[in-house]
């Protein structure tokens, strides 16, 4: 089954190319287009790594809603970035990134091989969950069974997080002039 792993390597290299070009663009709309394509390729990668539900979510949320959010924000913002020259700060950032990346790649030799059946991740709990979702819950999709039943409270916390974020966005973008116009309208009515 080496072919699967080669397909994954191809796809992830495409993602690298796209990410490298995101760094250098100055037109914001092109950055957003490339970011959308990036998450499209990421979702294709998730399909080839057997994570179908994650691919579904990434397609609708990462490639769809994120892109629309970026575009909606861009309609209030300047459309082009200020030109920057390569200076001392960039060298500092580059050296930090190279250092951390080198350490991580060095550490990756101790990580288990991709797709090996005897990896430590696959040893515990998983067979219990697969058997349990067949026998106790009765849903064929194991991911849904874990998400909604075994870890239901966690999903509940996730909805609270999204609700809080929505509230915060509303507070930030609430139009304060609306309040004042309401007040002035009320004053006029009371005068009459």
């Amino acid at each position, binding site marked *: 089954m080496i*072919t699967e792993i080669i*397909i994954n390597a*191809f796809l992830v290299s*495409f993602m690298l*190319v*796209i990410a490298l*070009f995101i760094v250098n663009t100055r*037109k914001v*709309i*092109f950055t*957003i*287009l*490339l970011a*959308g*394509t990036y998450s*499209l*390729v990421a*979702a*294709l990668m998730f*399909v*080839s790594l057997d994570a*179908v539900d994650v*691919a*579904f979510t990434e*397609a*609708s949320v990462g*490639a*769809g809603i994120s*892109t*629309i959010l970026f*575009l*909606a924000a*861009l*309609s209030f913002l300047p459309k082009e970035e200020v030109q920057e020259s390569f200076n001392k700060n960039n060298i500092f950032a580059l050296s930090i990134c190279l250092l951390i990346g080198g350490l991580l790649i060095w550490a990756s030799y101790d990580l288990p091989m991709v797709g090996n059946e005897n990896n430590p991740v696959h040893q515990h709990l998983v067979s219990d969950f697969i058997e349990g979702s067949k026998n106790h819950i009765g849903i064929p999709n194991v991911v849904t069974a874990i998400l909604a039943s075994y870890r239901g409270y966690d999903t509940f916390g996730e909805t609270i997080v999204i609700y809080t974020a929505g509230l915060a966005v509303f507070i930030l973008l609430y139009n304060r002039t609306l309040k004042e116009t309401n007040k002035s309208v009320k004053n006029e009515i009371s005068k009459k």
Partner: protein
Amino acid sequence: MMFLAILFAFSVCFLLILIRLIAGKTTYDRILAANSIGTIVVLAISIHGFYMGRPEFIDISIVYALINFIGTVAVLKLFDKGKLGDK
């Protein structure tokens, strides 16, 4: 094996269009290339399902087709009017 060859051909097409997406002169070229990449990814997901022997996951490509269309039209609308809403 045939499906694997088709997947490989798809990756070649993907690379060709990616070059146009990165090097395109005008923004319209880039929008067009992004749209075509979306179509190719939709087809590649379906073919990948057949290659793995479990073609039940074509729902994902339906979602992709919808999202791709909505995203492209949103980008074009922003480019035309400078904003997304009606006001």
